[in-house]
C-alpha cells in the first residue's frame, strides 16, 4: 500500500529530524594519537601543565583501571564490546590556545554555539573562555545557557562574592589546594571501571566553589558538547558548597550525529558542608543514535554528592532524553545529621535506546532524609530500567526514605523495569517504596485528538503531565526547554 509507505516515510522523516543538534563543526583539532597507555595519560597531563601530584594520581588510577573489569552483567544493557584503544583521548581545537577574549576564539566555534542556541558573544569575561586551552568541548564546559543573567556581569559579580566558577584545568592551576583537598574524595579513583578510567584521562569540566554563607545569585551552567569523531569525552566536575552556602547548577549536553558509538564517561563530585545546599540539574540530550540503533553516545557516568555537614542538602534533578545507552546513578551520601538527599528523574527512551538509571541514597547520619521520584517513559523498542539503592546504616537513627517509581509505556514493543534495593540496618528507620506502571491509553489519545491535538502533541502533553512532579524541580529557565525536549524525544513514537 502506497498510503502506508507514505505514513512510514513521514514518521521516519520526523524521527530523523528530531535531533537538531546533530551537525558537526569543521575545525582543525589537536589530537592525541589513538590508544590508551601511560604515555597518553602523561600526554594529557603535560598538555594541561599539571602538577606532579595530579599526574601521579592519574597514573595510579590508570594502573588500577587496567586490573578492573567492565561492569557488563548487572545492568540491563546490551552492547558490543568497546575497544578502548580505538579512540583519541585528547582532542582540542588548534586555535584555542587560551584565548583571553572572544575575539581570539575561532569564529567557527562561535558559530557552533550560535547554532546550538548558546550565546557567547556578549560574555567575554565568561570563565569558560579564559579556560579554553583544552579540547573542543572545554569551551562549552563553562558556556552558560542563560544569556540574560550571565551576560556581562557574570564573572565579576561572582568573584566579588568570592565564588569560583571556572574550568577544572584552570582550577588546578589557580586553586590547587582546593582541588587537591576535594578531588577524588567523593568518588575515589578506585570507585568503578568508568570512574577510574575518567580519573586517568579526564580532560576538562567545571569547578565551582561557593564560600561560607554565600548564596550564589544565579544559575551556574555548563554546556557539554562532543564534536570530534573517534573521541571519548571524559569530563570531571567538582562543586563545593562551604558552610551555609547555596548553589544551583545545570548541565546540558549534545553531540553530532555519527554512525559510530562514542564514549562519554564523566565524573561529578559534589561536597556540601554544614547547612549548605547544592541543587544539580541535568538536561541530557546526547545523540541517541538513529531509529535502528546505529550510532549514539554511550553515557557511562558516575555522579555522587556528599552531604558532609549537618543540615546539608543535595538535590539531583535529571531529564535524560538522549544517548544510545545511559548508565547513571546520581547518588547522595548522607553523612551529616539531618542532611537531605533528593533525586528527581525523568528518563525517556525511544527507538533502540537503553537506559539503566537511578540513584543511591546512603543514610549514615541521624535523621537523614531522602526522596526519590523517578519517571521512566519507554517508547519504540527501547528498554528503560530504574535501579536504586536505599541503604540505612546502623547509626542512622530516624532515617527516612520515600521512593516513588512510575513507568509509562508507549506502544507494545518497549520495556520498563524497576529494580529497587533496600538495605536497612536501623530499626527506627522508615523506608517506603511505591511503583506504578501504566500505558498511554487509547482513551487518552482519542480524547486529546477529539479536542484537536495531533497524536504527537497529545503524547507530549500526556507525558509532560506524567513527568510534572520532576519537571517542576528544574530551574524555571530550563523547565520550558525540558518540556519541549520531552515532546521532541517521543516524536515518531505514535502513528
Amino acid at each position: 500500500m502506497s498510503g502506508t509507505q507514505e505514513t512510514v516515510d513521514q514518521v521516519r522523516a520526523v524521527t530523523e529530524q528530531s535531533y537538531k543538534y546533530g551537525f558537526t563543526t569543521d575545525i582543525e583539532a589537536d589530537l592525541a594519537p589513538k590508544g590508551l597507555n601511560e604515555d597518553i595519560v602523561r600526554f594529557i597531563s603535560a598538555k594541561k601543565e599539571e602538577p606532579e601530584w595530579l599526574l601521579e594520581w592519574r597514573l595510579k588510577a590508570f594502573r588500577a583501571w587496567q586490573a578492573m573489569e567492565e561492569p557488563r552483567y548487572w545492568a540491563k544493557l546490551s552492547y558490543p564490546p568497546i575497544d578502548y584503544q580505538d579512540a583519541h583521548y585528547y582532542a582540542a581545537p588548534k586555535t584555542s590556545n587560551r584565548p583571553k577574549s572572544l575575539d581570539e576564539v575561532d569564529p567557527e566555534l562561535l558559530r557552533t554555539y550560535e547554532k546550538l542556541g548558546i550565546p557567547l558573544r556578549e560574555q567575554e569575561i565568561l570563565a569558560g573562555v579564559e579556560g579554553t586551552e583544552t579540547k573542543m568541548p572545554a569551551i562549552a564546559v563553562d558556556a552558560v545557557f542563560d544569556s540574560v543573567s550571565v551576560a556581562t556581569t557574570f564573572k565579576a559579580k561572582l568573584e566579588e562574592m568570592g565564588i569560583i566558577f571556572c574550568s577544572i584545568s584552570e582550577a588546578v592551576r589557580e586553586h590547587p589546594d582546593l582541588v587537591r583537598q576535594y578531588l577524588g574524595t567523593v568518588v575515589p579513583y578506585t570507585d568503578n571501571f568508568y570512574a577510574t578510567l575518567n580519573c586517568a584521562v579526564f580532560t576538562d569540566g567545571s569547578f565551582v566553589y561557593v564560600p561560607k554563607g554565600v548564596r550564589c545569585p544565579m544559575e551556574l551552567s555548563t554546556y557539554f558538547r562532543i564534536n570530534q569523531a573517534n573521541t571519548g569525552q571524559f569530563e570531571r566536575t567538582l562543586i563545593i558548597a562551604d558552610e551555609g552556602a547555596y548553589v544551583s547548577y545545570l548541565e546540558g549536553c549534545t553531540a553530532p550525529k555519527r554512525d559510530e558509538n562514542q564514549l562519554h564517561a564523566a565524573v561529578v563530585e559534589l561536597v556540601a558542608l554544614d547547612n549548605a545546599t547544592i541543587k544539580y540539574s541535568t538536561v541530557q540530550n546526547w545523540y541517541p543514535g538513529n531509529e535502528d540503533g546505529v550510532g549514539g553516545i554511550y553515557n557511562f557516568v558516575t555522579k555522587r554528592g556528599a552531604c558532609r555537614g549537618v543540615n546539608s542538602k543535595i538535590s539531583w534533578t535529571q531529564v535524560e532524553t538522549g544517548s544510545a545507552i545511559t548508565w547513571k546513578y546520581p547518588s547522595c551520601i548522607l553523612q551529616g545529621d539531618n542532611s537531605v538527599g533528593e533525586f528527581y528523574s525523568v528518563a525517556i527512551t525511544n527507538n533502540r535506546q537503553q537506559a539503566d538509571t537511578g540513584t543511591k541514597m546512603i543514610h549514615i547520619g541521624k535523621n537523614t532524609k531522602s526522596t526519590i521520584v523517578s519517571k521512566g517513559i519507554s517508547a519504540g523498542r527501547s528498554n528503560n530500567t530504574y535501579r536504586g539503592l536505599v541503604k540505612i546504616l546502623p547509626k542512622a537513627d530516624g532515617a527516612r526514605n520515600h521512593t516513588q517509581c512510575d513507568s509509562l509505556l508507549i506502544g507494545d514493543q518497549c520495556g520498563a523495569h524497576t529494580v529497587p534495593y533496600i538495605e536497612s540496618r536501623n530499626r527506627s528507620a522508615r523506608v517506603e517504596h511505591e511503583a506504578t506502571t501504566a500505558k498511554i491509553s487509547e482513551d487518552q489519545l482519542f480524547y486529546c485528538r477529539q479536542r484537536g491535538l495531533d497524536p504527537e502533541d497529545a503524547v507530549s502533553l500526556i507525558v509532560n503531565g506524567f513527568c510534572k512532579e520532576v519537571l517542576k524541580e528544574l530551574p524555571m529557565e530550563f523547565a520550558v526547554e525540558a518540556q519541549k525536549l520531552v515532546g521532541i524525544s517521543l516524536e515518531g513514537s505514535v502513528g
Partner: protein
Amino acid sequence: MLEIKNLHATVDGKEILKGIDLTIGSGEVHAIMGPNGSGKSTLSYVLAGREGYEVTEGSVTYNGMDLLTLEPEERAAEGVFLAFQYPVEIPGVANTTFLKYALNAMRKRRGEPELDALQFLKLIREKTKALNMSDDMLKRAVNVGFSGGEKKRNETLQMAVLQPRFAILDETDSGLDIDALRIVADGVNALRGADRSMLVITHYQRLLEYIVPDRVHVLAHGRIQRSGGKELALELEEKGYREFGVDEAA
C-alpha cells in the same frame, strides 16, 4: 450540515451499525434514543473518527466534506465535538492548560491566530462563570478526582470554549443528579444557535425535558427504527422500547 447515508460500521469485525440514514440541518437538535447495545456510542465514535471503528459502507457528508476521510483532530478543527460519556483523566495536566492547547491547536489548523495567555484567561473566566464552575476546577488535572457531575460540567465547559458547529452529546445525563443535570442542560441550551447543530444521545427521556430536541430517532439493532418530533420521546417512555420492535434485554 450533516448527512449520514446507509452507514455500516464494525467493531472487532462485528457489525454494529447496519445502515443508518440521518440528516441534521443547521441549528437543529436531534436526539437519538435507544437501549443498551443499540449502537448509540458506536455512532458517536464513528462520527468523531475513533480508531477501531471501521466504516464498511455508506457515507457521512459534513458541510460538504467527506467527514470519514478526516483524522479525528481535523474533524475537531472543523467543529465536530464529542462530549464523552466517560470523560478521560489526564494526570498532571491542568484543566486550563489542556483547554488552551486544544483551542490553539484548532485555531492553528484553521489558520486563525492563537490566543495568548491573557486572552485565553479572559475567555475561560467568562465561560467558567456562566457554568457556575470554580477556579479550583480549572487548576486541577483534567478530570482527575472529579465527581461524575464535575466531569460532565467540564465537558460542557470545553464545548463552550471550543464553540463547535456540530456537537455530539453522548449520554451526558448519565451519572447526574437532577441539579447537575439542570446546570449542564442550561450550559448546552446556551450554546444552541442557528449555526450550531447537536446530536443528543440518551437512554432516557428525562434529559429531553431540559434539552428539547427538534427531532427524535429511535435506534435499535444498528438501525433507526422510527423518527418523529419531540413527542416521540414521551411515547417511548410510556410504551418502552418493546413497542418499537426492540427487546429491552438485548
